[in-house]
């Protein structure tokens, strides 16, 4: 008798829950574009957020709605963009491959110190304690947090300064996030020129502490006005002007902080 009641009670309980779930699934159904699931299957699925969306699913949903370009996935690059374009029925899109660039040019022997640092050997820890004794408040600390986080072996230290390998770099943005001084950013692959300095100090101050820092002399602005502009004591580049000849600015820069890379 007790066996029968237990089977009945549990069975009925299970049945009620099943019915409830079935009803709820129907009632709370979300009309999702069928393409979202297909696009999601193609994406790398790393949920890295380099595209600007909250994750791969968010990105797929935005692509299906037409809010972002099919080539938005930086990690997937051209291959993924092509497949997504097929699903979306788009043709003639452009892929702009991006790579990480380090905006500091001071090698280990060029950095001036205000104190010697003997704490934990990571940039994150050094930045917490007075910038690891570095005199420059903007420059590279050189402990290689960016090297540690790179999943693609695309960034290495050379003379205490991280150097990226544009061929291996997928622009996942992990090093950009890892750098406590925010001196790494993404640049277009086909525009291999960077301003290797992040200092917003006044020119005279920068000149005192660093031989290769931007001193905001505005010579680059005069030479190649389409690309360079000095904002807040630092030369910044307009990367949308791809293909412009930056050679005059590179040659005339007095501290040689505008450099050709890759």
């Amino acid at each position: 008798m007790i066996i029968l009641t237990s089977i009945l009670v549990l069975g009925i309980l299970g049945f009620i829950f099943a019915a409830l779930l079935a009803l709820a699934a129907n009632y709370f159904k979300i009309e999702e574009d069928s393409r979202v699931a297909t696009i999601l299957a193609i994406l790398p699925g790393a949920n890295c957020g380099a595209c600007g969306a909250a994750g791969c699913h968010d990105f797929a949903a935005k692509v299906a709605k037409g809010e972002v370009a099919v080539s938005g996935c930086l990690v997937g690059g051209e291959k993924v963009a092509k497949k997504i374009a097929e699903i979306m029925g788009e043709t003639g899109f452009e892929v702009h491959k991006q790579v990480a660039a380090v905006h500091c040019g001071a090698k280990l022997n060029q950095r001036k110190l205000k104190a010697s640092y003997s704490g934990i050997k990571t940039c994150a820890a050094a930045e917490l304690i007075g910038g690891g004794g570095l005199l420059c408040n903007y420059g590279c600390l050189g402990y290689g947090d960016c090297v540690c986080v790179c999943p693609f072996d695309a960034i290495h230290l050379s003379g205490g300064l991280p150097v990226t390998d544009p061929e291996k770099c997928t622009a996942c943005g992990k090093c950009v996030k890892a750098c406590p001084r925010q001196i790494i950013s993404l640049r277009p692959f086909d525009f291999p020129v960077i301003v290797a300095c992040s200092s917003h100090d006044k020119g005279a101050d920068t000149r005192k502490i660093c031989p290769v820092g931007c001193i905001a002399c505005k010579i680059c602005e005069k030479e190649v006005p389409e690309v360079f502009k000095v904002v807040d004591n630092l030369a910044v580049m307009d990367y949308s002007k791809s293909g412009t000849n930056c050679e005059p600015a590179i040659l005339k820069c007095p501290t040689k902080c505008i450099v050709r890379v890759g």
Partner: protein
Amino acid sequence: MELFGIFFAAFLINNILLIRFIALCSFFGVSTQIGTSIGMSFAVIFVMTISSAVSWVVYHFILTPFHLEFLRTAAFILTIAALVQLEELYMKKMVPNLYRAMGIYLPLITTNCAILAVAFLAIDYKYDFLPAMVYSLGVSFGYSLAMVLFAYVRERMALAPIPKWFQGYPIAFITAALMSLAFLGFTGMFGL
């Protein structure tokens, strides 16, 4: 006052993680970052309160009348699993922001032993409905407290130069044991 006693006992004195050692898998699994530990904590508070209410009703109004108290393990697992599914469906549609914030933690909680333990304990203590609710709130807040504290310690440990043999879980276990010892200090507070 009695309700306060129940809450406080569940919150600190019998802290589910550090004194009872229940739900340790999530305690070590998602406590590496403060952000994720807070997400998990909120999901646990949410699910634990609702699931203990429903399992209390299932026990007292379905199992007891049929004298099937021995079936409570199976019945509670069924109830909790169905409930979490239901909550997920509801939140996805009605509060998508909250759903996205809780993310993966909501379905993960289905298999969290703390949820089942609270449903059992509330019945073992022979609590009425309101005290059972206060008890599960206390337990879930205690879970959150231990979780967030531990996440802060672990974020600091990530920067510390730990000897190679202690890196990762060994040092985490030692830290958790020390925290557990500290929590033993609450024993006997307010005569509880």
